[in-house]
């Protein structure tokens, strides 16, 4: 037992004047009466006093003293605690996953966890210290180790709900490090680690964390688990992804998965909209714990924002059971971005190759123009991808160029000869240009040996280091892809790999708009790749590149803006799937579900700086990239606590903040109030003076 506020014991001095007042006789008020004859009769008829009534003054005094003692102890903040007298370091881990948003009796699980955490904080003495960690997708230290209670309370109160899963394991590991640093080895304080969670999801506390033998791992602190939340029925999207349609070269397919995480059958409707226009409504009936998967095809190539919502959601309870509501609303919506697929102008310069021409004509997004011969002074159309087959001008056209089977030298290379029956030595299968391209089985009777004027990025090499497929970056801008294989005697043009290779090249030159970006899970960090054109847009917008780093702007679904620094992919050699001319952006954990936008940041010029920030930020900029973030997370849909909760788990009970066992203050005040009521009754009945 200890007193946190011993100075309050001075309140006991009030007992002196109170006792004095009991000792001194109070002068009674005088009441004249007509006659004493009736009073004598009334008083004479009284039954003899009970034994205890002789001590009524003493009883009243004792009741008052007891009341004073209780209030004094309450003010002194008496504590019954089993912990040592050493200062304590308390590390609180708050699960802020999306499942903690589920409400029971109007209060979310996170709010209950907050209240419990605040109660724990209230029990700390001045010498104790604490830290607060939010267990979101990425554990975040909301407040470092401090004994400043307002800061700690503010950190707990401001702990933000995330729409994603919570990585409790990493959060506990982080908390262990914080708490263990206060162990005996560190000196003064003893560590304590408390985790507030709903016990839902697939995460299981590890043995190492929970019950580590203190002798072997002296710096580990046992974890106290406090679980909040009752099992609640819930249903929601667990997947909502877009991909290119396998059947329709222009269209998209959407993969939808809905899970009924309840012990009751479910009926609902899946409503699909694109840019606010209803596309489809699909009725869904699910058995308990059943998943529904569906692929929606024939989505056009126009692009747009696809929004799915789960509506008319009803759990069919057993007979007599009513009032079953969906536990979590956040997972009832999902978003996806369908990139627009713009048409592309292609100029084919070829003396005549049916397969080359057909490969290009087969692509419905291409407007093809064919030149059968190379003019003496060609005028290259702007905004057009030039495909040169066999015919090579002395100076390559500006912009992107695809060269197939070059027969002549130009400003980018010189033909040094020809190699017969080259053996494929290596191919960069990880490069975007070589995706799904397999050249091993291709018959290659001959290939041109090229000597490049500037070092190329070789994508495929024959034995002896002869480049077969190369990417040349020109200083004037525009990349050149050169396939040195002689198509005349090769079966490459007849194989499936050829249209794939050409399509990859067309996608590369036309930007990444053709690929449907995957929807991310809330709480994830996004790794975004912007095309070289995006960097050009930013530069033309007045952006000043500092050390090669460009600044972009990320807009959240709620409209919040943040700056993102992007580096050219060339700064990260070996970055998978990124070409050197592209830009690589890595975001912070994305804590909002919806559509996020990346656009060019406002110019940082002097003129722009003179413009108010709000005005500058208010400018509508064409987004360079859009991507979707969903709360559709498999592990967070199920709001039923896991069956395998830790054995040492304690199910937290919502109780008033002042009624805590650690602090008996609440009980003392309650007892004092009870005593006051008893005292009042005794006085009312004239049993006490």
């Amino acid at each position, binding site marked *: 037992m200890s007193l946190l506020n011993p100075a309050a014991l001075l309140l006991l001095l009030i007992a002196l004047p109170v006792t004095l007042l009991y000792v001194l006789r109070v002068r009674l008020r005088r009441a004249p009466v007509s*006659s004493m004859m009736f009073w004598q009769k*009334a008083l004479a008829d009284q039954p003899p006093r009970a034994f205890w009534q002789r001590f009524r003054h003493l009883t009243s005094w004792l009741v008052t003293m007891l009341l004073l003692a209780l209030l004094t102890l309450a003010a002194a903040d008496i504590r019954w605690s089993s912990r040592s007298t050493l200062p304590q370091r308390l590390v609180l881990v708050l699960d802020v996953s999306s499942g903690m948003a589920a409400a029971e009796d109007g209060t979310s699980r996170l709010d209950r966890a907050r209240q419990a955490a605040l109660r724990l904080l209230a029990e700390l003495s001045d010498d104790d210290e604490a830290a607060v960690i939010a267990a979101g997708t990425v554990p975040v230290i909301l407040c470092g180790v401090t004994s400043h209670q307002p800061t700690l309370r503010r950190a707990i109160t401001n702990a933000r709900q995330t729409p994603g899963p919570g990585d409790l394991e990493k959060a506990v590991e982080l908390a262990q490090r914080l708490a263990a640093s206060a162990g005996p080895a560190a000196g003064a304080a003893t560590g304590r680690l408390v985790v507030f969670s709903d016990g839902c999801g697939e995460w299981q506390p590890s043995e190492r964390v929970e019950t580590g033998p203190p002798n072997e791992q002296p710096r580990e602190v046992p974890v106290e688990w406090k679980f909040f939340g009752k099992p609640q029925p819930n249903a929601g999207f667990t997947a909502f992804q877009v991909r290119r349609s396998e059947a329709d070269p222009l269209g998209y397919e959407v993969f939808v998965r809905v899970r009924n995480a309840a012990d009751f059958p479910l009926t609902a409707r899946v409503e699909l909209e694109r840019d606010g226009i209803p596309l489809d409504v699909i009725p869904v009936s699910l058995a308990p714990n059943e998943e529904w998967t569906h692929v929606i095809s024939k989505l056009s190539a126009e692009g747009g924002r696809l929004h799915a919502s789960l509506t008319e959601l009803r759990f069919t309870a057993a007979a007599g059971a009513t009032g079953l509501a969906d536990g979590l609303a956040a997972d009832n919506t999902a978003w996806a971005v369908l990139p627009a697929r713009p048409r592309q102008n292609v100029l084919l310069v070829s003396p005549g190759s049916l397969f080359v021409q057909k490969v290009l004509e087969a692509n419905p997004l291409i407007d093809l123009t064919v030149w059968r011969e190379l003019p003496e002074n060609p005028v290259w159309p702007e905004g057009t991808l030039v495909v040169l087959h066999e015919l090579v001008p002395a100076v390559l056209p500006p912009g992107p160029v695809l060269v197939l089977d070059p027969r002549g030298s130009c400003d980018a290379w010189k033909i040094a000869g020809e190699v017969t029956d080259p053996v494929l030595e290596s191919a960069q299968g990880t490069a975007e240009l070589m995706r799904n391209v397999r050249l091993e089985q291709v018959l290659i009777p001959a290939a041109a040996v090229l000597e490049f004027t500037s070092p190329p990025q070789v994508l495929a090499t024959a034995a002896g280091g002869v480049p077969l497929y190369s990417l040349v970056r020109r200083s004037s801008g525009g990349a050149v892809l050169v396939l040195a294989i002689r198509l005349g005697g090769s079966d490459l043009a007849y194989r499936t790999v050829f249209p794939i290779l050409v399509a990859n090249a067309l996608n590369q030159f036309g930007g990444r708009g053709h690929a449907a970006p995957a929807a991310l899970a809330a709480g994830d960090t996004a790794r975004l790749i912007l095309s070289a054109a995006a960097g050009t847009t930013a530069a033309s917008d007045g952006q000043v590149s500092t050390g090669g780093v460009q600044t972009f702007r990320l807009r959240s679904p709620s409209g919040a803006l943040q700056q993102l620094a992007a580096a050219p992919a060339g700064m990260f050699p070996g970055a998978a799937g990124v070409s050197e001319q592209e830009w690589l952006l890595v975001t912070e954990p994305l804590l909002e579900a919806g559509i996020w936008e990346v656009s060019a940041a406002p110019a940082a010029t002097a003129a722009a700086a003179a413009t108010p920030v709000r005005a500058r930020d208010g400018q509508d900029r064409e987004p360079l990239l859009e991507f979707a973030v969903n709360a559709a997370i498999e592990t967070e849909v199920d709001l039923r606590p896991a069956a395998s909760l830790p054995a040492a788990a304690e199910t937290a009970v919502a109780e008033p903040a002042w009624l805590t066992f650690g602090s008996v203050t609440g009980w003392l005040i309650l007892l004092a109030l009870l005593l006051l009521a008893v005292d009042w009754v005794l006085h009312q009945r004239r049993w006490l*003076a």
Partner: protein
Amino acid sequence: MLFPPDFLTRLEYLSMMSKRVFRGRLLAQRRSLQTGAGLEFSDHREYAPGEDLRYLDWNIYARHGQMLVKRFQEEQDLQVSVLLDASGSMKFGSPPKFDRARQLAAAFAWLALADLDRAGIAVFADGLVQELPGGRGRERILGLMRFLEGLSAAGRKTRFSRSVQDFLQRSPRPGLAIVLSDLLDPDGFSEGLDQLRYRHYDLHVVQLFDPRDARPELLGDVELEDLETGEVRQVRVTERIAAEYRRAFLEHQAAVRDYCLRYGFRCTAADSSVPYDQLMLQMMKAAGTEATPEDGTSP
């Protein structure tokens, strides 16, 4: 002010109400049955030597030779005596019971004087303190009021029996006795009333009480002071004791009422907080309701 300027006007009004509406039943107007000098013939009796020959009925003597004397019914006035309690307990109340008693005494006296009866006032406490002898005529009312104004309720005990004894010694002639008192005599009230009853007095007991006499608003520790004896007693008044007090008070009132009912006397428990004229009207009304055909009057 004990007697406000319109006091007499109100008394006149009460007198008219008494005659017209209640036919004067409040004072139970009646003639004396005593024979003597009067105008109305009553009967004859034998002549005794020495008697006044003027009353000898000469016609009978001439006709029958018998000497008979004519007797006449004597018209004797009603003596209304107001016994006014001036003990210390009458000081209690708001207004004091003694003030209300004096107003009632004046009112009763006025009704008697208005009927050409004789009205007198006897003030008592532990004995007969003061007395205004009976007299007749309306002009006496002013003197009577002055007498009442000069009275005060001294801090004396109530000894009703002894007071009645003194009163009877001075007023042997019976009549109507109106007792204005709270009757808070520790020795009891019945002995005094018995003496009046034995002397053939017609009684009207007006028992005055203050509302705080009936329901004292005292709870907790108090120091009670007896206004008659000056006795001081510290008591703790609980709900139970207060209830016992109220029960004792009601028992006392019931005892007075039972006594009067038993002997056919009129009894009124008068709340001293009620104005005197209303009290008088209430008493007149009650008297009219109690009237019987044998009274010779009809309601």
